[in-house]
């Protein structure tokens, strides 16, 4: 499972200042992979946080606790 290439491309296009900017297929694939790594890392850290609190479900406060370091790391 991962981000659809066309969707990632659409996202990138939205943020380019110049409409004529193009992204190569490889670059889109790489961006999709980076997003996937980011999500999996965020989810894994959230899980770890929930586990340290002996809980079996990840809730928003676990995501909240890992958020600062996550944003600093990426």
């Amino acid at each position, binding site marked *: 499972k991962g981000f659809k290439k066309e969707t990632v491309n659409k996202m990138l296009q939205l943020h380019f200042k110049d409409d004529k900017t193009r992204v190569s297929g490889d670059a889109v694939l790489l961006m999709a992979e980076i997003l996937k*790594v980011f999500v999996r890392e965020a989810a894994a850290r959230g899980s770890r946080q929930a586990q340290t609190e002996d809980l079996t479900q990840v809730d928003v406060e676990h995501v*909240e606790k890992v958020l600062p*370091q996550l944003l600093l790391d990426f």
Partner: protein
Amino acid sequence: EDWGLTTEEFERWNRLYKIEPGDGIKKPIMPQSHFETLGDEERQTESPAEEVHELSLTEWRLAESPFPDFLVDHSDRCRHFISIMDMIEQMRHEEGDCSYEQKIQPYFHWEDVDI
């Protein structure tokens, strides 16, 4: 008149405030980040001789709010962090259904995702 301490001020600082070795003041360090999914094994071990105090990025999160800024704005990354924290604050007491999901669900198209 200039930026330095006057002799009297320096003497008072030296007597009352100067931190000496052995005052029990620990060296503040940032928490070490650890990548769960990338399996990085490099863990810097602190030299035991130093007393360190690991800072927490989340301990006071509920009391924090953005400082007013002047000439130097908050970074995009900072604003991004603040907006997510606000979103989490709004969802904190939701049970079961998720307002965020309900808001974006009508826009979902199967062709936008890999199944």
